């Protein structure tokens, strides 16, 4: 596997791979998100307790779940960058951070707009909401650190340390609804139990989770390519690329 993986440590090869993958991720994410969202908004049955307001779930749950997954992906990249000194892993971590931050913001805002009609309040300082807000601040701190040094290697190391320390927040978010009393409802989907919703609601939710995942992939690829170009702007292959594009 290492033999096969090794060439991708070269920025040029990684850039090319990202360029090849990008259209597939972009097109498939738009299609799945369209199907999932239209299904969830217009065709899924109404919830017997929450009425039509529950339709916010089709963006809230994918955004919240994948904001955490994106964080773990970013932490993995940061760890790889730190242990094996792979500069491209730093570029990947820097590419994921803004995507994760936007997802976390989406999860918080949609959760707030769902909480108002259901709980009677936009915001409450309970465990789930507070840890999710900390996740947003972690993302913002990591983005700030990536931009705070002229030297990208140094910036990557500083951001990587914060990223790895922040991993502690992820299990706390996940189990906060079990460990503490909270207004927030428990998990809708889990691996061990049967899902607590009928298949007509579950299907569009799962499709949207897949769609959000593909969209994160596409956005990360776009940003990863930018990071690679930014870090290699003096290299001949980047100069050739720029010369080609300006024709």
């Amino acid at each position, binding site marked *: 596997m290492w033999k096969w993986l090794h060439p991708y440590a070269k920025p040029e090869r990684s850039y090319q791979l990202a360029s090849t993958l990008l259209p597939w991720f972009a097109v498939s994410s738009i299609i799945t998100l369209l199907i999932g969202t239209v299904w969830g908004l217009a065709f899924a049955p109404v919830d017997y307790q929450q009425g039509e*307001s529950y339709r*916010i779930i089709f963006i809230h749950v994918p955004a919240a779940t994948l904001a955490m997954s994106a964080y773990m992906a970013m932490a993995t990249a940061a760890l790889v960058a730190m242990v094996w000194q792979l500069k491209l892993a730093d570029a990947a971590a820097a590419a994921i951070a803004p995507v994760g931050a936007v997802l976390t913001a989406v999860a918080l*805002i949609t959760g707030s*707009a769902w909480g108002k009609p259901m709980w009677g309040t936009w915001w409450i300082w309970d465990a789930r909401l507070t840890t999710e807000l900390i996740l947003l601040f972690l993302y913002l701190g990591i983005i700030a650190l990536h931009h705070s040094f002229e030297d990208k290697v140094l910036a990557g190391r500083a951001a990587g340390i914060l990223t790895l320390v922040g991993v502690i927040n992820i299990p706390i978010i996940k189990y906060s609804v079990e460990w503490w009393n909270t207004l927030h409802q428990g998990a809708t989907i889990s691996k061990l139990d049967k899902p607590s919703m009928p298949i007509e609601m579950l299907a569009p939710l799962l499709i949207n989770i897949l769609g959000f995942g593909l969209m994160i992939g596409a956005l990360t690829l776009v940003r990863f*390519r*930018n990071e690679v170009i930014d870090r290699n*702007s003096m290299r001949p292959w980047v100069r050739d690329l*720029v010369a080609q594009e300006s024709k």
Partner: protein
Amino acid sequence: MHFESLSDFFAMGGYAFYVWLSYGVTFVLLVGLTIVSVRGRRNLFNQIRSKQVREQKLKEYRKGNENNEPKA
């Protein structure tokens, strides 16, 4: 379709404000991030291009100076 009519659909059983606020904000944020990310590439390319032009000019300037310098 779950809803009886189009206006029924937009009314969202009385939760129209919250549902459409959620979907609207999400759409704006995601499209915004996409635009910023895609534009980042163009900005980078422009930066690199202008740097190249600057270097080229500097090179020519130095060359010109070499010829003008009085020989010892």
